[in-house]
């Protein structure tokens, strides 16, 4: 069983290499993706629910360096299992969407597999060094794909911008992680050892700042967010799906996994700042999203906006000293839900562009008459993303909001005022109005009303094979929305 996590990381890499050596690209990639879905399901079945929190199961380790102690180590706990499920599902769907009509499908498959492998490695690593390194590995094909096959006017410029931006963010993060490890007594990169130790309280403040900015940049925390929307708009569809859906969750995962439990004091110092920044994500970037006139840019910005809710969950966690299981559950559920829903939406945007050749709102309209199935699926994705009950996103958001208010009344004293966290949560909830505005506007201008002047051609109705990746993602959202326990059971 210990070898399963290793296999999960190795399979996409092997598949990518085989495709490099002229193996049939689509078949190999799909087999790898399906194998990973099955292995992940196997881990779910064999997962020991009685194991105490913070224990990695299916753990394996290969020492790389003694001093400091670094090893190539994998393992799974509830948190990483949820991220693993997200990754394998989105990988399957994103590989499926790669059409043979694109320029160099082979390279598309290879890159998507490598991004997936990087994300899987990061989420399954139980060693901080490889946790970081795998994420970097995944960024490289991301940059390349945007630069080589990007859409829009100047994909190369976009590729350069995010390379520099994320490169800087990663360096700050690296400094933070190294400082973190070096301020514990054992100075070990092993996560279990690290999580069991105490970080010098004098150093906590600055390490926390480095991690918030470093991880924050990778998650597009305001004001370090402006790389994201242009990058997603320029990236080929499978890359947007994998990056926005999966890879971006790395930063959130890192904050929850390392920063919150290890830097209680340090994170608390920045808690109010974090509230301001996350409101920047939700309210400011929310308005930026409203102003967009192209579907891809709108989706990119909306994805930035929704990170604010997950940061709110992190803020609630910080406020409770890491002991708010509702906030933790809500944040992880929303990470999963957002990943699946944004992947679905980017996939649908890709399909709209493939069929009509356009993404500007003013050049679209009345599409639901021509492609009713696409209209229905887009509607599902839109409603999921604006937090409609029945979809996983709502369950996650609701838990986060409730967690901010849980237990604020003390004893029998009547509650007379709210803290900053609660006020920020109420302000953040205004996001439900903003997101309804931009998402319904988009639906209105793409699918409803008149056709654009000069008409629009959309081809034949979608066949089942085209619909399948969308259906996989939509079903995941609905099933988890109705039964959040399917995922949350692993968090104990």
């Amino acid at each position, binding site marked *: 069983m210990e070898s399963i996590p290793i296999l999960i990381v190795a399979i996409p890499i092997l598949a990518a290499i085989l495709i490099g050596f002229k193996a049939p690209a689509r078949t190999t990639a799909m087999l790898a993706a399906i194998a990973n879905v099955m292995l992940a399901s196997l881990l779910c079945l064999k997962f020991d629910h009685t194991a105490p929190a913070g224990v990695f199961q299916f753990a394996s380790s290969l020492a790389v360096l003694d001093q400091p102690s670094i090893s190539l180590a994998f393992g799974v706990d509830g948190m990483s299992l949820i991220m693993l499920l997200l990754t394998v599902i989105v990988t399957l769907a994103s590989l499926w969407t790669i059409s043979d009509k694109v320029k160099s499908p082979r390279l598309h498959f290879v890159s998507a597999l490598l991004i997936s492998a990087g994300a899987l490695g990061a989420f399954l690593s139980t060693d901080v060094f490889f946790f970081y390194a795998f994420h970097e590995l995944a960024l490289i094909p991301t940059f*390349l794909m945007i630069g080589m096959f990007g859409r829009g006017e100047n994909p190369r410029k976009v590729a350069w911008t995010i390379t520099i931006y994320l490169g800087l963010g*990663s360096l700050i993060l690296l400094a933070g992680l190294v400082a973190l490890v070096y301020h514990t007594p054992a100075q070990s990169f092993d996560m279990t050892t690290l999580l069991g130790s105490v970080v010098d309280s004098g150093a906590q403040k600055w390490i926390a700042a480095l991690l918030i900015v470093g991880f924050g940049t990778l998650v597009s925390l305001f004001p370090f967010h402006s790389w994201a929307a242009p990058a997603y708009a320029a990236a080929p569809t499978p890359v947007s799906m994998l990056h926005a859906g999966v890879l971006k969750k790395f930063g959130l995962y890192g904050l929850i996994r390392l920063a919150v439990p290890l830097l209680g004091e340090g994170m608390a110092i920045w808690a109010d700042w974090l509230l301001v920044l996350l409101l920047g994500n939700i309210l400011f970037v929310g308005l930026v999203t409203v102003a967009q006139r192209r579907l891809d840019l709108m989706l990119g910005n909306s994805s930035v906006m929704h990170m604010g809710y997950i940061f709110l969950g992190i803020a609630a966690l910080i406020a409770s000293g890491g002991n708010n*299981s509702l906030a933790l559950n809500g944040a992880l559920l929303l990470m999963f839900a957002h990943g699946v829903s944004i992947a679905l939406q980017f996939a649908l945007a890709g399909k709209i562009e493939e069929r009509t050749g356009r993404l500007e709102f003013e050049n679209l309209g009345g599409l639901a008459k021509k492609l009713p199935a696409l209209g229905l699926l887009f509607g599902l994705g839109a409603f999921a993303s604006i937090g409609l009950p029945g979809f996983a996103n709502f369950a996650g958001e609701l838990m986060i909001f409730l967690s901010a208010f849980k237990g604020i009344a003390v004893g029998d004293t009547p509650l007379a005022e709210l803290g900053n966290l609660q006020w920020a949560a109420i302000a953040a909830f205004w996001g439900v109005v903003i997101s309804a505005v931009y998402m319904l506007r988009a639906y209105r201008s793409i699918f409803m009303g008149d056709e654009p002047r000069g008409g629009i051609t959309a081809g034949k109705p979608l066949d089942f094979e085209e619909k399948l990746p969308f259906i996989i993602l939509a079903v995941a959202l609905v099933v988890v929305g109705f039964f959040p326990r399917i995922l949350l059971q692993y968090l104990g």
Partner: protein
Amino acid sequence: MTNLPWLLLIIPLASALIIQFALRQMSGTAALLGTASVAATFIINLVLLGQVGTDAFEGIKALHWIDVGDFQVSFSVMPDKLALGMMFVVTTIGLLVHIFSLGYMKDDEGKSRYFAGLSLFMFSMTGIVLADNFLMMFVFWELVGVSSYILIGHWFEKNSAADAAKKAFIVNRIGDFGFMAGILILFGATGTVGFVGLEEAFSAETLPLTGTLLTLGVLGIFCGAVGKSAQLPLHIWLPGAMEGPTPVSALIHAATMVAAGVYMLVRVDFLIAADLFSSTTISWVGGLTALAAALMATQQNDIKRILAYSTLSQLGYMVMAVGLLAGYAGMFHLFTHAFFKALLFLGSGAVIYACHHEQDIWKMGGLIKKTPITAITFMIGTAALIAVPYVSSGFWSKESILFAAEHTNPSLFWIAVFVAFLTTFYMLRLVLVTFFGKPRAHGAEEAHEVGLTMSVPLIILSVLAVIAGYGFFAGNFLPDSFHAHLGWDANHPVSHEGSKALIASLASLVLGIVAAIVLYRGKDKDPISIGFFKNRLYIDDIYEWVVKIGQDLVAFIAAALDKFLIGGLLVRGGAGLCSGAGYLFRRVQSGNLQYYTILFGIGVIALIYIALS
């Protein structure tokens, strides 16, 4: 039997799913399945009503939706008389509207989509009514919003319908923002979202929250009702919702969903009673909505819009009653209004259908001769709406509201009386212009009576519009605690003979009838024109302006800031910071991106080793 109430939720959901996924191409079967599903819930609900007060529902199963540590969000139902009485309204009108739709939507292209939408609505509305806690109610609150969105936008290829659907959803979300804020504040203070638990907390000696926060909590909850029940200033979506098919307007936008706000407030009336400022605000919002909407209604020409403004106005009455701590009167008026307003809307649907989709009352006329059943049933509904004494249901319920206002808030009482006058006036105008005089357009000349599937629901609703105000009937569906307030203890409706309320409402009725007859008898065009009322007090224009300036401009500025300041300054500034490194990069990369990125990866890893060793 214990879990029988769950069927009320399961049946419509199953119907919606089956129609959506299996019967898309079989619209006839879809329509019948939808109708049968409502018939089933109607019967089950009657069975359940017979068991109220017994221990039949002891130990009813709850579904744990979210279960984290010491915290659960559960779905469980609360089948008390308030809920099941409301369910009687929902299933009765739902059934009649389904039957009416069999005729009205016979040849519609999207017929199965329409019936799937109706079933989804029945499911969501049932959830609101049966919910035993705020979160479950909020879940279904949002879902009725979606079904309303789908049904308003049924003819989505029409720009006006597409815009109206979007507007309805967004405006409702503004209300839901306040609703959720209220729920969160109450949850923070009491640790519970259940209605029973909250009532316990609020009946304790010290309230669980105080001061401004109490007001914010209660008014937050009220915001939900302001959105859903279309009160000022969020009333603007309801007239637009008339873009949907007329049976939908009857069911959702007149009888049931828009009344959900009132129902919710009655459900948690203990909250309103806890804060004087909130209750006063609520009563004034209701009173002013009643007044403003009635003024707007006097100058509309579209038959459905006149009825829509009248719905707003009547909802205002109900909300006012709730604010005056007379929830029993608000709920009673909700009950009677549901039947007569559904009747009026279905009647208007029959008129529109008969006149070949004409909605302008000035292009109708003389229809009493061409469509006598529609005309007579419509006039029975009108009699109930304008509260003809002793023979209409509306009289009893409106009287109970006026009576409550007379003793608690004289200013609101006189506003309510004036609204009663306006109501009589604009409804008589509608009836005179539509059904009397001579036909003023081709469609009205050619009109002929609608078929049985449409006329039978009209006749049944006319009967209900008369009897729903009497205690022997309504008493079966309204909680026993209301009966004393409504004078039903001896099974006699309250009359308040000699009270100011009775005299004033009789006087306003007579004045309204006289004014309408003098002004509109035999007229071919509107003799009066008041732009202020016709243009809905310019509120919609102000909104349009606010949205343009406020939201779009702010959004535009935000986007510009984002692009040039944050994107430009910070990114390029950040890049500038390491311009030295940049210079090196430029040397190394020599324009080859692939090569560079791989170098970058190697570089990062090398850097880590350097940092570590």
